[in-house]
């Protein structure tokens, strides 16, 4: 690939203007066709630079990861977008919330699709994060040097469960109310800390307006914020640990693929 030297002949001033704007954003031309271009494409983009320039073929085999971590990441992205969109319609009040759910079904254009995508993506995320954890376990991918990324993973799993659980209350229907009543009473069984913890979560003796606002803030700000931070650390560690696990990480070269 050539360094960006515009060829002045034959071009209109407008064409050159757009070319220079394009170059100011992307710097290294169109879709890369060679190794150097491919390297620059990844290296120079904020969104792509979390990837290494080159990856082991072994990591790309679908039957190695089954794409489970990537699926979980995609689900989180969709949940964030649909979640922010839902915030335009939702109101975290014990008297208003349920009505907003009915509105999503009848009054808001495609409101039912919005709510359904958010709901099914949320259920799927719990499921796929657990499958991803199983993949990591059964391929021995938590062994040195990846021990700490496994710990980060557990934190991500707990945050995922927390997000799902806090979201469960928000529709304020019978299902929501009683599931959270049961779920928080499980937390209350812990000796000494259990009951204070339960009251701290609910902001009161039982599930009510205080619990709704607490769960709402946890659900839309605190937990997704924490999850984003830990996810960034998770990805960064993958790079620092030399990419995905690989048979070459074994001490003994006994295993041939």
């Amino acid at each position: 690939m050539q360094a960006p030297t515009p060829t002045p002949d034959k071009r209109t001033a407008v064409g050159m203007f757009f070319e220079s704007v394009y170059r100011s954003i992307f710097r290294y031309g169109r879709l890369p066709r060679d190794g150097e271009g491919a390297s620059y494409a990844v290296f120079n983009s904020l969104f792509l630079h979390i990837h290494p320039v080159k990856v082991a073929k072994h990591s790309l085999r679908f039957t190695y990861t089954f794409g489970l971590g990537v699926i979980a990441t995609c689900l989180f992205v969709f949940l964030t977008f649909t979640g922010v969109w839902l915030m335009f319609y939702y109101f975290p009040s014990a008297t208003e919330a349920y009505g907003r759910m009915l509105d999503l079904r009848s009054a808001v254009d495609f409101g039912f699709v919005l709510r359904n995508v958010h709901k099914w993506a949320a259920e799927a995320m719990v499921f796929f994060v657990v499958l991803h954890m199983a993949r990591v376990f059964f391929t021995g991918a938590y062994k040195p040097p990846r021990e700490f990324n496994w710990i980060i993973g557990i934190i991500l799993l707990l945050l995922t469960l927390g997000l799902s659980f806090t979201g469960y209350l928000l529709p304020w229907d019978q299902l929501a109310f009683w599931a959270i009543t049961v779920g928080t009473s499980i937390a209350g069984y812990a000796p000494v800390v259990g009951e204070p913890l339960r009251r701290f979560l609910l902001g009161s003796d039982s599930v009510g307006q205080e619990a709704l606002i607490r769960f709402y803030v946890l659900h839309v700000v605190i937990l997704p914020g924490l999850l984003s931070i830990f996810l960034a650390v998770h990805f960064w560690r993958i790079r620092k640990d030399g990419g995905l696990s690989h048979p070459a990480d074994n001490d003994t070269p006994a295993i041939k693929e």
Partner: protein
Amino acid sequence: MKDVDTTQVYPRDPRKTYGLMELVKGTRPTVGLDEDTVYAWPHLLVRELVIFLVVAACLLGAAFLIDAPLEEIANPNSPPNPAKAPWYFLGLQELVSYSAFVGGVLVPTVIVLGLMLVPYIDRKRVGIGVWFARERWLANGLFLTFLVVMVILIIIGMYFRGPNWGFVLPWEATTGH
């Protein structure tokens, strides 16, 4: 003076304070892998994009076909019988029905601490990078057992528990109020 080849793959751009150092062919001495690698663009990124689109399509499909449940408005005076936690906590709720301490405290603590300790207990670098490596039969067997037990408990909680947490068969289940 000119006989040493100083051609760089990436000539340093004087306007920049950073740069991609080099690309190498052949074995990288720093990483013990065979040079069995491909460029992230397009090989990895295209795969990620495909997964992204498939996930989007599945979600949209599911959203049009199946409605998220919505029951009547919450009524603190009318508990359903049984009241069930979200599905992923039903394993714990099932255990709580035998012993509040075991299901509510002991098992969740043991699960979380146990999971966190896994990589510090099982440190031997064997069987990395392959599914169900034979050398890892014990670890894999234990983890598989753990997963299967959790799934069975969750299925019992979801389909075999009726009023007062009594045993019911799924096709006979009715939810009382």
